[in-house]
C-alpha cells in the first residue's frame, strides 16, 4: 500500500505540465482560466496540437492512436490538463463514441471513424435524451425502421450538446417496437448533413448556446452505420454512460477554481480589505479543499480498483465520482461568486464595464454548472444506483 507517486510518475507529471506551458495558446488559456466558453476553432486548434504530440486520445488502444499509459498516468494527464487549465478534448468523440466504436464497432467503422475523431476532423454529438426520455432514458421513442439498405430515422432528440457544430451524431433509436423497453434499441451513427435533420439551438440561463433540439424527419442512414448488433444498443449505452460518470469528477477543474478563488481573495482591489483575512471565508475555502482532496483520493481508489476488475465492467463506485464531483464543481463556483461580491451581479457577455473584467465568467459559470447534477444521469439516478447496485436496497 503506497499512496505516493513514484519518481517516474512525478517526472511524467512535470513533462505534461511543461508541454502545456509551452504548447497551449495563451488566448485559449486565458478564456478557460476565466471560465469563458471556447469556440469550435479553439478546440480544433488545440486538438491538432495534442495530436501532433501524440496525446489527443491517450486512453485509446495504441493501434488507434492511444498511448500505453497505465491508469495512474492517464489520471495524471487528465488532472494536469484540468488544473492548468487546458481544454479537454471533445468528450462526445474521444470518451463516448470513440470507445464504443473501438470496443463494439466493425473494423470498417474503426478505420473510417476513429482517426477523424482523434483529430477532431469529425465533431460528434450525442443523441440519447428525448423530451419524454430523460432520467428514464429507455422510454425513448425515436425509431429506425429498415428500408432496403437503409435505416429510416424519425424522432426528436433533446439537450444535444454542441450539436450546432456537429458533423456526426450517435443516436439510440428503437429498432424493435415489440420488445421490452430496454431491448429493441440500437446504436446508430448518423451524418449530420443528411437530409431531414434539423437543429434548433436552445439558449441556456447563462446566456450561452450549448444545447440543441435535433429533429429527424425520414432521415436515411446506410445499414452499416449500425454499431454492434441490432437491438443491443442499450448495452453499449450503459458502457458509455459508466465511462462518462467516472470522467465527470473533473477534480482538476475544481482544484483550478479553488486556486483562482484563493488568488482573487488575496488580491487587494480598490483598496478594500482582502477577503482571505476573513476567518469565515478561510474556513469555507479550507472546507472545500478538504472535500476536493478526499474526492481525489477516492478517484485514485476507483482507478486502482480498475486493475482488479474485468475490463469494461461498470464500477458502481463511479457514481460517487459523478455525485461528489458535480457537487464540488457547483460548490466551488458558489464560493467564487462569494469572492466576486458586487461584481458578480454584472453580466459580462455584452457591454459590461471593464472595471469588472477580473470577475468575468464567475456568475455565468455558476448558472451553467447547475447542469452538472442534471445531465449524464442525474444525481438522483446516481444515488439510486448506489442504493441498489452497491447497498443492495
Amino acid at each position: 500500500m503506497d499512496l505516493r507517486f513514484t519518481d517516474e510518475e512525478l517526472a511524467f507529471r512535470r513533462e505534461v505540465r511543461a508541454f502545456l506551458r509551452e504548447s497551449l495558446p495563451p488566448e485559449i488559456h486565458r478564456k478557460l482560466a476565466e471560465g469563458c466558453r471556447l469556440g469550435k476553432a479553439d478546440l480544433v486548434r488545440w486538438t491538432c496540437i495534442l495530436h501532433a504530440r501524440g496525446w489527443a486520445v491517450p486512453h485509446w488502444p495504441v493501434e488507434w492512436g492511444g498511448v500505453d499509459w497505465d491508469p495512474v498516468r492517464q489520471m495524471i494527464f487528465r488532472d494536469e490538463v484540468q488544473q492548468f487549465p487546458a481544454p479537454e478534448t471533445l468528450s462526445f468523440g474521444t470518451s463516448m463514441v470513440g470507445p464504443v466504436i473501438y470496443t463494439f464497432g466493425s473494423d470498417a467503422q474503426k478505420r473510417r471513424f476513429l482517426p477523424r475523431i482523434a483529430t477532431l476532423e469529425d465533431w460528434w454529438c450525442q443523441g440519447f435524451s428525448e423530451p419524454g426520455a430523460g432520467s428514464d432514458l429507455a422510454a425513448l421513442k425515436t425509431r429506425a425502421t429498415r428500408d432496403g439498405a437503409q435505416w429510416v430515422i424519425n424522432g426528436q432528440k433533446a439537450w444535444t450538446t454542441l450539436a450546432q457544430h456537429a458533423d456526426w451524431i450517435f443516436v439510440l433509436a428503437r429498432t424493435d417496437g415489440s420488445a421490452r423497453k430496454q431491448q429493441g434499441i440500437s446504436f446508430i451513427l448518423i451524418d449530420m448533413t443528411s437530409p431531414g435533420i434539423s437543429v434548433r439551438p436552445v439558449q441556456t440561463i447563462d446566456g450561452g448556446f450549448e444545447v440543441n433540439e435535433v429533429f429527424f424527419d425520414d432521415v436515411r442512414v446506410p445499414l452499416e452505420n449500425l454499431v454492434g448488433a441490432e437491438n443491443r444498443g442499450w448495452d453499449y449505452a450503459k458502457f458509455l454512460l459508466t465511462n462518462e460518470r467516472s470522467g465527470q469528477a473533473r477534480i482538476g477543474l475544481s482544484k483550478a477554481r479553488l486556486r483562482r478563488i484563493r488568488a482573487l481573495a488575496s488580491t487587494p482591489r480598490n483598496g478594500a480589505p482582502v477577503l482571505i483575512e476573513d476567518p469565515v471565508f478561510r474556513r469555507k475555502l479550507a472546507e472545500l479543499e478538504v472535500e476536493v482532496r478526499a474526492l481525489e483520493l477516492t478517484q485514485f481508489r476507483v482507478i486502482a480498483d480498475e486493475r482488479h476488475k474485468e475490463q469494461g465492467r461498470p464500477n458502481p463506485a463511479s457514481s460517487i465520482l459523478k455525485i461528489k464531483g458535480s457537487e464540488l464543481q457547483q460548490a466551488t463556483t458558489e464560493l467564487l461568486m462569494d469572492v466576486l461580491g458586487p461584481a458578480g451581479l454584472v453580466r459580462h457577455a455584452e457591454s459590461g464595464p471593464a472595471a469588472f473584467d477580473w470577475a468575468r465568467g464567475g456568475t455565468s459559470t455558476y448558472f451553467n454548472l447547475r447542469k452538472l447534477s442534471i445531465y449524464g444521469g442525474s444525481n438522483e439516478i446516481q444515488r439510486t444506483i448506489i442504493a441498489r447496485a452497491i447497498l443492495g436496497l
Partner: protein
Amino acid sequence: MNFDLSEDQRLLKDSVGRWLARSYAFEHRARILASPEGWSRATWAQMAELGLLGLPFAEADGGFAGGPVETMIVMEAFGHALVVEPYLPTVVLAGAVLRHGASAEQRRRLVPLITDGSLVLALAHGEPQARWHTADIATRAVEAAGGWRLSGAKSLVLHGESADRLIVSARTGGAPRDPNGIGLFLVDRKAPGVVVHGYPTQDGQRAAEIGFQDVRVPAEDVLGDVANGLPVVEHAIDEAIAAIAAEAVGAMEAALGMTVNYLKTRTQFGVPIGSFQALQHRAADMFIALEQARSMAFLAVMSAADDDGARRRRAMSAAKIQTAKSARFIGQEAIQLHGGIGMTMEYKVGHLFKRLTMIERQFGDLDHHFGCLAAAGSLLDDA
C-alpha cells in the same frame, strides 16, 4: 399580533395581481427585457395609473400614504411576475431618501412627478471599493459658489442609465469609512460631468457605472444635512431590503408552484415524478424554506419603520440572511427538480432562479450580513 391584511390592502393585492396576470405575462416580459432600455415606459404609465408609483408617500406630498405593508404587497407580486421596471430605485430607494431626508419643499416639488410617472430616479451610493459597506464613500463634494461640486465614481447604480435624476452620496468631511461627513445631492443625469455606462445585470435588469467630474449641484438640490446623510441612506437600504425580501417571497412562491406543477405532470418510468418520495421530501423542504423566508420578510416589513436604528438593522440582516438562504436553496432545487427544461431561457423558472441569485447578494450577501449580525449581539432579545 395579527397577520391579516386590511380591506384596502386586500384590494391592492388583488388589483396588482390581476393587472400583472393580464399585462405582464412571461412572453411580454421577455420582449421588454430585449428592448433597448430593458424596461417599459408603457408599463410604467400603467403603474402610475394604478397608483403604485405614489404608494409610499404622504398625502400631503402628493402620495397615497401607503406603508411598508403596501410596499410588501406590491413587491411580492412583482417577484411572482419578475417585474423589471425601475420601481425599486425610484419608488423604494429614492422614495425613502426623499421621505426621510428631503425638505418638505423638495418633496412637494418631486413626489408628484414620481407619482404621475414622469420622473425616474436612481440612488447612486455604492462605490467600486466599498463591496457592501455603506459608509465606504470616497466620492467628494466640495462647496462652491451657491452650491457644491461632486467628483468620484459610483458603481452598480440600479437603472442609473434610465434615471432622469440621481441621488448621489458624497463625502463632505471625514475619512473614507467614517459614517459621518456624508451628504446627499440630487443630480441631473445629463448634467455636465456625469458619465454613465449602463449594462445589464445577470438577471437581465439594468445598472450603471457612473463617473462624476466636477459636477455642479445647486444649493436647493442638497437633500438634508450635508454631514449626516448616511442614516438616511441606510434607512432607505433597510426599506429596500424589506422590499426585496418580499419580492423574493413572490419569486420563491412562483418557483415552488412551477416545480410542484412540473412534478405532478412530468412522467418518467410510467408515473408522475412527483410520486417519488425523495422528490416529495425535497419539495417539502422547499416549502419549509419558503415559509421561513416569508416569516422573516414579515419581520423586515414590520421593522422597516422602526426608529431604533440598531434594532432595525439587526432585523434587516436577519431577514436578509434567511432570504438569501431560502432563495439559494429554492432556486437551486427548482432547477434540479425541473431538470434540463429549467436550464433554458425559454422557461420562466430559470429566470426566477437568476433573479433570486441576484436578490441573495443585493444590498449585501450572506457573509456581509452575518458579519453585521454577529457584531451586533444577540437577536433573541429583540423579540
